[in-house]
């Protein structure tokens, strides 16, 4: 079970308080009506499944109800950082490679 630092509450809390919401930084296309079906399907369904660093969206569901991002190693389950929505990750696969 993870121990997660909520960047809004500024505390480590147990995983039970959070919900995982999938891959982070999936921006909704600004002009959906002009997306092709293929582009919309990419936005809807296609997600990375990396072995290693992954940026994930989480929500502090039974805490502050805020969404935030986690950079997590999918092999060791180590959480490298947590950061607010709108911010960019400090730890990336490119940087650590």
């Amino acid at each position: 079970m993870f121990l997660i630092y909520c960047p809004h509450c500024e505390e480590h809390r147990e995983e039970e308080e959070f919900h995982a919401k999938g891959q982070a930084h999936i921006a909704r296309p600004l002009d959906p009506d002009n997306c092709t079906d293929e582009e919309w399907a990419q936005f809807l369904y296609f997600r990375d499944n990396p072995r290693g660093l992954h940026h994930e969206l989480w929500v502090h569901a039974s805490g502050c109800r805020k969404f935030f991002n986690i950079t997590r190693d999918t092999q060791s389950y180590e959480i490298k950082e947590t950061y607010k929505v709108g911010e960019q990750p400090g730890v990336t696969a490119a940087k650590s490679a």
Partner: protein
Amino acid sequence: MTSSNHVQPNRLQNGGRIDRSQPVTFEYNNKTYPGFVGDTLASAMLANGIDVVGRSFKYSRPRGIIAAGADEPNAVLQLGATEATQVPNVRATQQELFHGLVAKSTNGWPSTDNDLMSYVGKVGGRMMPPGFYYKTFMYPQSLWDTYEGFIRKAAGLGRSPVENDPDIYDQINHHCDVMVVGAGPAGLSAALAAARTGARVILADEQAEFGGMLLHSDELIDGQPAQQWVSRVVGELVGLENVTLLPRSTVNGYHDHNFLTIHERRTDHLGDLAPKGQVRQRMHRVRAAWVVLASGAIERPLVYANNDVPGCMLASAVSTYIKRYAVVPGNQLVLMTTNDQGYQAALDWHDAGRKVVAIVDTRAEPTGACVLEAQRRGIELIKGSAVIEAKGSKRVNGVSVAAINASGERVTGNIRSLFCDTLASAGGWSPAVHLSCHTGSRPEWREDVQAFVPGKTVQKQLTAGAINGSYRLSACLEEGVRQGVLAAANAGFGQQSDDIVEIPSVDGEVEQTAPMALFHVPHTKPTSRAPKQFVDYQTDVTAAGIELATREGFESIEHVKRYTAMGFGTDQGKLGNINGMAIAAKSMNKSIPETGTTIFRPNYTPITFGAIAGRNCGELFDPKRYSAMHRWHVENGAKFEDVGQWKRPWYFPKPGESMQDALNRECLATRESVGILDASTLGKIDIQGKDAREFLGRVYTNAWAKLGVGKCRYGLMCGEDGMVFDDGVTACLAENHFVMTTTTGGAARVLEWLELYHQTEWPELEVYFNTVTDQWSTLTISGPNSRKLLSELTDDIDLSGDNFKFMDWREGTVAGVPARVFRISFTGELSFEVNVQSNYGMQVWEKVFEAGKKYNLTPYGTETMHILRAEKGFIIAGQDTDGSVTPMDLGMGWCVANNKPFSYIGKRGMAREDCVKPNRKQLVGLKTKDPQKVIPEGSQAVADPNQPIPMTMLGHVTSSYYSACLGHSIAMGFVRGGLDKMGESVYYPQADGSVIEAEICSPIFLDPKGERQNV
């Protein structure tokens, strides 16, 4: 024989850590035996000369106690004096004895001593190769249930109680700086070193007493017997406030981010039931800054022919029974060893006054100090040889010894027979790397100690002692101190230096000479022809079976494991895994590191469901949510149904009424006069902010720009894929203030959905959300007399049709209480939803009933609500939708606004090629040919009921009821292209072979023009 005064034939007159002043009796397989407090069930059974404790899983061979701890594969018993206190899967070696303990063996039918299945084992040994169950019971599939029952009965690894457990279990959360696992020499020194820095330390050990192997050791620490050193250290730890000591506590799981689960058996040693008011077991959930694993090592048995005959034991277990429990588990011992430590069992046996027939050392020229000790006692030493086969069936009665070559691969000499009743084997040690494996760390092979040790760590974890392959006591103590200091320093306590705790000295420690690597004792016959050489006792995996698996092409050790079932028992193969991997490696001409090891997973030892559940059972299993009017519902005989966590009235039967009677009455009363529903459970979300209206327009499919203050509107909510996921009515309270209702079950999900889009996509919108579900009670008053009734309860709301139109809401007082009244309708009748503060709910409800008597005001529940709305063709999100239907599929295109400036959620999704193609499954009404026949919900629609199976399925029924108002059944369901098939027939084949024919029609069965609600 069954008297409690019965002599314990294997009990020594003196010694041991048992309490001879507290004799107790226990029952095993319906016979009573004596023992002492301080015994384990296993030591007491051995003291009484009980040889057979179970039957093996596959071959049903008689099995005896092999080990003295968590590694025991055979003595897995059923405990419990009553049905309610049954506990399966208890290792006799870990169960402390108490007066009145009742235990039974679990394998064996009709009995452990006389087992029918053993004839399969004897006659058909070769009939049950690895993969036997896969190969034999695959076909025909229809017989699997029969096979499974047979296999389970034959396997019989205990049974669950069928009565409720009367004991209390609980859970506790801890945080600590240093968690030390294992209280042997390494763990005790680590805990003491860490504790002296002031760090918060938890020390857990699975045994009743701390000390580990020191409890039966003859060694001296700091010039004193080891047991005195243990007492001194434990004494200091007990006095420290920053230390929590957990004996009888198995660290069962080592999870992510240094989270450990510990299973503490608090009162299992006191009786069949916990003493009144005490907890039986407790699960500790520990979040540790640093962890020191000092979990020790497990001795490996040697693999020789018939090595499972009762009387074959681990050498270290023999020593433990003699020294700690004063039990010598036999009379004449033969010891086979590959190493110096193994000798101790023979020395202890001799010193206990019983006969050591011989020590068989597999090494050609053993030279250790232990050899001199054996010679000093006059014990015969047979060098360069091995016991290649044990004799006997229910007890060892002799062994065959032969010389082997230096690499241990073949027999080189003649066979010599020895008579004995006990054969101890010492094949070296396997570090208990289990917890380290739980973290994802892969163990590494170390050639010098012939064992897997923890590999690269992935957690904040240190290791000390035998888990590292450090078997000398002095090394264990030193590593313990160093790692304890380091762990504390890493957690921010103390200086990382040695002077905080002196490293204890060990006097007269003898050098150990090199062990021999021997994982499979050769036989004169090839492995496949020799008597069975067991590797994993609990799953009956033999050396021949592993070799066969590799010959059949299973090359990965993980595949060999699954094919043979090695390590699949409740002991996870603690004894056999390393031998099995070595045998597989050799069979494939690979090295052990090349072959690798399988990974252990939580839990280390089986854990009771009670401890997992803790207090989360019975009434506390899941929270229950009640509306403010719940007491009234109970008093008025409501039947309840669960909707999420809510308890909602389902229907209100009167005495003598069937459910259908009650539904008919409730429906008719509502349509003819007035009914009332407690709708408080609907999700309610308060939405405020200057951009609230814009936000609604983006999350709902329909238009919100022009909804005026005082008005309500129904909305459909879709996902980005264009599929409906929730619906409800939203009211405009003020220009910047709305209240949204959601389905009862969808409330939390919808709120999270709104927050998700606000926080991640449109943070620039100024809008705020909060749940107000619990703040409001909602009374839905519905029916032609609802206006008259409500007018008696309010004098400040004009209820007239002209001034309070359909889809308006008004603020005022109802029954003297501030209220919001919404004129909306889920029944199709004139209908008012009265919302009052929750704490007024009951009062208003009762006032409404006082006034409603003369109108025959009738309470109705969720089932009548479902029927009434289905008569009107209103959907229920989650019942008539399943995440795969668009608004158009529901025939609700009227609720989709395609001219909104913002591309709302769902718009692009429902415009995808597949979503707009014709002939999708569409929601239609269904009228059965036989008007009394109600189609079961979920029934599949077909065009031709005579088509051979598999038939072409066109859709399914989502809602189906008998409508008393209409006098016939009604249903809604999906039919492919259904909106274009009005009037056509569709068929619903049933499981019983019958077929229900229905005509496709509009889902609006009643009042299609909506005249009833617009009065």
